[in-house]
């Protein structure tokens, strides 16, 4: 299978119709569900989900048998006049992940959003929006045209925002409005850039653009606008003001979809934009800036996560940190000649997205099960919960382990690929950030687990018994994420040397052990220093000497945490976030312009009409 799709493909391939099906099946589900409504809406949604799952699997199979991307020309009109749908390895993988996560969330939500005898509000809205998000994401993964991708972004936003306020409380409405306004600002920036691209090159088709894009000043402005718009929708630090409140009050199923899939949609378009539309444009400074924001997100999100009192907000801030992880691949994919290469770094970044989608959805679902039984999710009150909800706690723990990057999880493989790329490119500082990311992840997962596994302070007063099916859905997703590293990714992602194998032997064992121990030990230290802990139990006097040693260091850690938490509140204000957004547009424009000037100097004669494709 050739990679990536940069050849002109003006014909529909055999089995290209699968791509159309993957979009129109959920769309038809939305339309039918809207008319049928009432009691049958859940069954209709399940039927659609099963059908869609089968289509995603069929696309994976068809792609493996085909010797290039699957293509479908809509209305038989070839680009640039018409619109093409294209499925390469990246699309197929993301579509399968979306299908799996949506199926698991659907199973989980079956218990929460079961319509009663008459039609009721929340189930009606939930099932329609779930199918709407699915249709939109499939268009994001398949769309071969920047404007079609814009329509897909709008679909994602309009389906995701009402999920936030499904609860109907005033604060959730406020959170939804915040999300809507910020996401629409992102859309406007993206659309502005798209318009400029059309004005420059007379096409919006990704493959055609990849041949026509040159480093011109207007292109740089377009790229800066689109990049910033997409970052605002992806909630990359510091453009995340909508993310924590959106998760605070959303139903667990909605949070799993938002955090697992929705932010990946805009991320995926950003990858298409940078790696396929304009791989020669961004240059060193822009990729470093993007990854620096990612690195800041990891530190910032993790530290704030360690200081949260509610389990759900720990997971929400963990999402903020993990989104940062996705952006570390950009500088590592930059070749010596200044081209973004579709190689191991890209594969690592995509794998990280896949792992996070499954693991984070599992963790949100597990937290939702816990909340449903306890009626609250304060971390300090989670003691003994593992007796009542063993499967949910296991799902949370396994999801956390998978995220830390411990073998054989997908995140482990992603980390290996990114570390390898960092070593090849000589950018050791990103290797440090990558390792730190694993340690921070371990820290907040261990912090939660320490509270969960502690003995109960009071017997758990349960509102309702745990639903095994909900816990199982969470566990299935967590296992998925944990075993992702064993799948044959070479068939779909650009992994050149093949996957680091699991050979047995004394050396391999010690290596593996160090890879497991580093995040866990480091995480324990970080959690001890930065986490919120209650006062130690008075009857354990033997803790006192070690605590006396740790105490001064912990005070510094807490002061640092205080500072970061306060800047979190600062950054989440509207005026600040708005100004930051504009400043980022300018920064990305400036970085791109910097690269442009450097290229002009390198080749003064042909600089003006230099072709990068």
């Amino acid at each position, binding site marked *: 299978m050739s990679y990536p799709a940069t050849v002109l493909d003006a014909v529909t391939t055999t089995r290209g119709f699968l791509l159309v099906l993957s979009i129109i099946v959920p769309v038809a589900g939305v339309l039918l569900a809207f008319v049928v409504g009432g009691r049958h809406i859940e069954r209709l949604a399940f039927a659609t989900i099963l059908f869609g799952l089968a289509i995603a699997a069929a696309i994976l199979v068809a792609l493996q048998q085909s010797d290039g991307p699957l293509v479908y020309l809509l209305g038989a009109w070839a680009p640039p006049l018409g619109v093409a749908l294209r499925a390469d390895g990246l699309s197929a993988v993301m579509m399968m992940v979306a299908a799996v996560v949506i199926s698991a969330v659907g199973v989980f939500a079956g218990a929460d959003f079961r319509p009663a005898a008459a039609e009721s*509000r929340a189930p009606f809205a939930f099932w329609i929006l779930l199918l709407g998000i699915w249709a939109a994401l499939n268009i994001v993964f398949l769309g071969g045209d920047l404007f079609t991708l814009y329509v897909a972004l709008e*679909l994602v936003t309009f389906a995701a925002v*009402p999920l936030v306020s499904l609860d109907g409380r005033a604060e959730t409405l406020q959170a939804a409005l915040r999300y809507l306004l910020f996401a629409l600002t992102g859309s406007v920036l993206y659309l502005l850039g798209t318009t400029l691209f059309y004005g420059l090159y007379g096409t919006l088709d990704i493959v055609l653009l990849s041949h026509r894009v040159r480093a011109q000043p207007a292109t740089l402005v377009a790229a800066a606008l689109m990049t910033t718009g997409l970052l605002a929708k992806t909630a990359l630090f510091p453009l995340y003001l909508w993310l924590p409140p959106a998760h605070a009050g959303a139903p667990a199923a909605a949070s799993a979809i938002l955090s697992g899939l929705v932010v990946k949609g805009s991320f995926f378009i950003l990858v298409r934009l940078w790696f396929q539309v304009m791989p020669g444009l961004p240059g060193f400074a822009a990729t470093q800036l993007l990854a620096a924001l990612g690195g800041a997100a990891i530190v910032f999100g993790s530290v704030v996560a360690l200081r949260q009192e509610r389990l759900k907000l720990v997971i929400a801030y963990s999402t903020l940190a993990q989104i940062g992880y996705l952006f570390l691949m950009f500088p590592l994919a930059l070749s010596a000649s200044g081209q973004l290469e579709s190689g191991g770094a890209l594969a690592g970044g995509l794998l990280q997205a896949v792992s996070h989608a499954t693991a984070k959805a599992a963790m949100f679902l597990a937290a939702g099960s816990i909340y449903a039984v306890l009626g609250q999710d304060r971390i300090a009150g989670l003691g003994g919960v593992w007796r009542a909800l063993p499967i949910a706690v296991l799902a949370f723990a396994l999801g956390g382990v998978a995220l830390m990057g411990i073998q054989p999880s997908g995140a482990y493989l992603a980390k290996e690929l990114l570390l390898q790329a960092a070593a090849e490119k000589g950018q050791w500082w990103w290797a440090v950030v990558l390792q730190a990311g694993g340690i921070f992840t371990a820290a907040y997962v261990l912090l939660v687990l320490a509270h969960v596994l502690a003995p109960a302070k009071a017997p758990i007063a349960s509102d309702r018994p745990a639903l095994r099916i909900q816990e199982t859905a969470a566990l299935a997703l967590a296992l998925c994420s944990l075993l992702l590293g064993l799948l044959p990714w070479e068939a779909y992602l650009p992994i050149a040397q093949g996957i680091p194998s699991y050979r047995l032997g004394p050396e391999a064992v010690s290596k593996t052990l160090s890879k497991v121990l580093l995040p866990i030990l480091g995480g324990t230290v970080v959690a001890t220093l930065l986490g919120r802990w209650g006062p130690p139990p008075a009857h354990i006097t033997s803790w006192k000497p070690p605590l006396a040693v740790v105490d001064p260091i912990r005070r510094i850690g807490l002061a640092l945490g205080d500072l970061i938490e306060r800047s979190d509140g600062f950054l989440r204000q509207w005026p600040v976030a708005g100004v930051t957004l504009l400043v980022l547009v300018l920064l990305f424009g400036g970085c791109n312009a910097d690269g442009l000037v450097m290229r002009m100097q390198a080749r003064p004669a042909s600089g003006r009409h230099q072709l990068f494709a």
Partner: protein
Amino acid sequence: MTVATILEMVLGAVVLGLGAWTIAARETFAATVGYVAYGLLVPLIWVRLDAVDVALTEAAIGGGLGGVLLLGAAARLRASEPAAAAETPGKIVRLGAAGASVMVAAALSAAVLLLPDPAPTLAPAAIANASATGLANPVTNVLMAFRAMDTMLEKVVLLLAIVGVWSLASDQAWGGRPGPRHQADPHGVFAFLARLLPPVGIVVGIYMFWTGADHPGGAFQGGSMLAAMWLLVIMAGLTDTPPASGRWLRLVLIAGPGVFLAVGLGGVCFGLAFLAYPPTNAKPLILGIEVAMVLTIAVTLGLLVAGAPERSPQR
């Protein structure tokens, strides 16, 4: 300098002034009025640029329905105005925002000025392929044939917007009639207008849609005209919004994307491609889709302005 140029310069200056006024106005209501006036003048610029299709849509959405929505929101927000004013950011933040905005605007203007001239365009290709559909308006051809998928999906966006607005209802009011029951003096000017205008407006709306096949106009413009007439009658208290649970209402709301999808699949069945029309029947098929879309757009826009279900269907 011709009279037309002077008029264009005055128009441009007024639009820019209204834009500045909208940003600078401290009161929500004043800013809204400025924005509505802006939305009504921008279409004139589009007309001067020979983009009549865009002008019609902008007038209907930006000036008309958007204006109704914003004025309604401003009226509701009046009580909380002092509280919102207290949250105004400090001078440094405002200066920073202004500085960043000016720089982004400057970069954007530079980019627009640097665009190649003559602009690379698909317009000749769109006109050359018009024979495939039998419609003479290239904009309609782009919307209904070359980029039919985008148009169909935009209708799904509208449907999701309805779901989003309805999801704001209280659980008790679910399935009820959207918005408040409007009262107006049955012998007053408003009720008089609401009786006088719709017959004309409906004919104009249908004409705008019908003529869209060969001239500027189309389903969206016609649909928003019909929506405006419907809203006028509702706001004058002459009729009520339909209950959200109604089966017929729901069918109308999905008719546009539904028929589009069905015709698209028909293209596959006849051995062409998804969303391809057989050349001999392209025009009637496209008009059929547009009839469904006009209905859907009119009802959707009307219901989006009306708001979430508030009253149980019985009352």
